[in-house]
């Protein structure tokens, strides 16, 4: 089936969903220190409305934070301490290898829609949003985007992405892991069907301060080839990334083995992620983005 390319922001994120996303925020299971004062609670004490503690006044302290009620009762100066609110770094990594261009609905388009929705949530909540598209030898970035008004820039950037080549996952993760600026939340959107495996790539970014979410996006036909539009009969399968050809006669037995293989792959990825405190989630590209955002990701703790 011919896939019509996405051209406009509306196609990435419609206004209805946008309105619903205004009410939610990205939630990190860790509290990171940010660069700029933001809307996110920080480890640091600072200026905000949220009370944290008292401490005795010392010379040079800002008198505005002296608690005068206590001074009236105790005749001693105490300073009120508030939680500092800082910004959050949200990194969205999109697999732009050719394997993402698969199925109906297309897995790559779905990944872009999810990326747009997540980026929008981040922008609305004044977080620093960074987008990374990666494939073999090609890493495209859009970093430190802040503010709701940048949503269209993010959309334009996403619309320009085109899947091609092999994934180059390990290399891409190494680059992201070493060049990160500030701690934050990283959401990885990929099918994780890497011939070389996902372990080394994930090891590059895991344990480096990111609160990581791995969203494994699979087209329905990849998840189950017996579905409509899937693989049937005697076919010559051509790998979209490597061009390798495989003769296949689809039989019920082969389909069963395929599903076993996929389950084993997903299970291995889930196990690896669990061991490294990464949240893993398999999403079919037929799942509505709204459902994913408002239900699944909230349930898994990425959004609130």
């Amino acid at each position, binding site marked *: 089936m011919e896939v019509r390319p996405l051209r406009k922001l509306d196609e990435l994120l419609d206004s209805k969903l946008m309105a619903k996303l205004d009410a939610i925020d990205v939630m990190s299971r860790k509290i990171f220190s940010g660069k700029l004062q933001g809307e996110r609670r920080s480890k640091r004490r600072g200026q905000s409305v949220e009370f944290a503690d008292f401490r005795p006044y010392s010379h040079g302290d800002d008198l505005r934070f002296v608690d005068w009620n206590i001074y009236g009762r105790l005749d001693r100066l105490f300073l009120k301490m508030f939680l500092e609110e800082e910004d959050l770094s949200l990194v969205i990594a999109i697999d732009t290898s050719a394997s993402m261009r698969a199925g109906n609905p297309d*897995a790559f388009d779905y990944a872009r829609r999810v990326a747009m929705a997540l980026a929008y949530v981040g922008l609305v909540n004044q977080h620093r949003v960074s987008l990374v598209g990666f494939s073999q030898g090609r890493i495209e970035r859009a970093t430190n985007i802040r503010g709701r008004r940048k949503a269209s820039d993010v959309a334009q950037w996403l619309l320009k992405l085109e899947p091609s080549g092999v994934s180059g996952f390990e290399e891409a993760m190494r680059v992201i892991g070493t060049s990160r600026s500030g701690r934050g939340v990283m959401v990885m959107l990929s099918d994780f069907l890497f011939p070389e495996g996902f372990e080394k790539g994930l090891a590059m970014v895991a344990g480096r301060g990111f609160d990581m979410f791995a969203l494994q996006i699979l087209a329905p036909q990849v998840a189950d080839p017996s579905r409509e539009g899937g693989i*049937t009969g*005697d076919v*010559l399968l051509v790998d979209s990334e490597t061009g*390798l050809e495989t003769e*296949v006669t689809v039989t019920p037995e*082969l389909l069963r083995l*395929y599903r076993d293989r996929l389950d084993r792959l997903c299970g291995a990825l889930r196990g690896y992620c669990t061991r490294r405190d990464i949240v893993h989630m398999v999403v079919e590209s037929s799942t509505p983005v709204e459902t994913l955002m408002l239900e699944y990701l909230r349930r898994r703790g990425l959004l609130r």
Partner: protein
Amino acid sequence: MNHVASLLVATMSTSIDASLNQSLALLSPTLAMTWVTPVAGAILGASVLAPLIALWFLKLRRKRRVVSSTLLWSRSLADLRANAPFQRLRMSWLLLLQILAVCAIAFALAQPEAEGFGSSGGRHVILIDRSASMNAIEGDATTDASSDASTTSNATEDPTRSRLALAKVAAKARVDELLGGGWFSARASDVMVVTFGARAEIRAPFTDSVATLHSAIDAITPTDEATALAEALELSRAFTTNDRPDETATALREAPPTIELFSDGRLNDLDKLAMREGEDIVYHRVGSASRNLAVAAISAERPPDSQNQIQVFAAVVNPTMVPARATLHLAVDGTVRAMTPAPIEIPAGIELDGEFIAGRTQVVFRPIEQPNNASIEVAIIEDDALRVDDSAVVVVAPAKQLAVLHVGAGGFLVRTLLEGLPIARFASVTLGEYEALIESGTTNTWDVVVLDGVAPKALPSGRYFAIGVVPPIDGLTAFGNHSDVYPRLVRDEHPLFRQAGLDELFVSKSIAVQADRRFQTLADSAQGGLILTLDRSDLHLVLVAFDPLDSNWPFQRSFVNFFANAIDYLGRAGDAVTGRTLTPGDAIAARLPAGSRDGVLTLPDGATTSVTIAPDGSASWGPVLRAGLYRLGYLVAGRDARETLLIAVNITDPAESRIEPRAELDFGTSTVQGVDVAVSRRGALWPWVLALGLLLVLTEWWYYQRQIRLG
């Protein structure tokens, strides 16, 4: 279609490999099938199948599909191959259709012929067995050979289920098939119908008229005759070579006809038959029932001491391999008079040196009072497949009331003794009076003439009891006297000595007698014969070669018994207690009183037919076809009353009672396998198979195209 089929036939090889044919026949045990060209089919099948599978791997043009990743597919394939090394030869509709198509075409090339697919052409002789065993009724109730004979069923009464009826239906269907042309043949057939039992009859000469053949088959009626195929075969052979005298050369060149035998295979003369070269016999086996019991023999006699009674003896045979039980009843003139108190056991038949010997049980009924003539029937009560042999009839003559003439006025001892016996009419005359009677020719009104110490000059035909005198008979000579003789019994089992032993007899004076070999010596002494008998067709004699007054015999009990036995023996000499029993196929021949007329014969089924009686009283009719009691009524000259002569016709051929159909007929030189009549229509199968092969090719092509299009 016929034309195309004929062309195909012409192009195909016609060689027959008998051994391959035999092995191929094993593939279809239930469908009798032959192969015209099995080699061609086998070679094609073997040579094409393997390359076909190889080509299938090469032929497959797969649809290219670009997928996100073949990672999972290649790993799954590796799993599949690891689990099933031969998975490349996996289920594929295309491959299956191709294999089926090739098999069907190879099958068709072998030109199979199967029962049930019709064929026509050539000349066919339909032989329909109408012997007694073909009256067996086919049905569930009668096919169970293992059960005892206690079950009854109405099925046995249904004539439409007899083997003959089934054979006729099957024969008519065969006629339709032979003369209907057929799907793959344009050849016409000539068919002849012959029916046979003990003898054969042509019912329809060679014709292609279906109506004629059908009516000829319909007209065949059942008989209770034995089965003899030889005459039918000879008849059909003779007809097939001589039916066109003007075209003799053509007729001789023509292939022998196919003989289509509709029978249960119980042929009495099978061991004497042989098939001729080129002769083709199709044995349409009729029926499957095997359970049958038969009354194989019946006889009756009047006990010597009670002439008004009748004692009946019967034999029941079991011609199956399973023991059976049966209850018999005895009916006199249709009225049941006795019954076996409990079912009698009849052992199973046995095979001895290849010969089947039926199980047999003798049954003796208690004597019943029956002074008059009567028809006596012994019948098995329980139903079995063949009812006609379940009963046997015998006709008994009335008890004879004897008339005895005593010749010799002086013999008071003998006369007094005779007067004491149960004799209907007795007279005592002198020798002179007796000779006068001889001259007047009226001696034949006496059953027994007792010559008491006197003898006429010449003896007319009759029955004589000579005591102390040697009558003038050829071969019998008196040559003096013996004295002080001790008699010795030679034939103590003779009826004359029933309860009449001679152990204590002493004869002081006897006549020395010399007799030729026609005389039988029953008692003799060291000096010669003392008691002799002669049984000639015209003359019966009991001779006691001494005067009882010259012995101590009158003082012994055996004296009276001997005289009573002698009178009884002579009085009934030459008279059978029972009338002669005929078998189906015999002719009725009766000698009625001279001048009898208006003969009417009543058949066992109640039908009547008139019988011509010659002026001398002889009448004949036949042959009789059914078993049972025949009644010949006639008007005796000078009397108004009608007399009736009873004639019993029984099946006595044990082969007819053995009704289990033969699976095959062994003609010595060859064996013909029986084919059930339900499926006994042989015809070419290969055109159908070829059509199936072509259809499979088309289906395969359509399926392939559909796959390409969908892919």
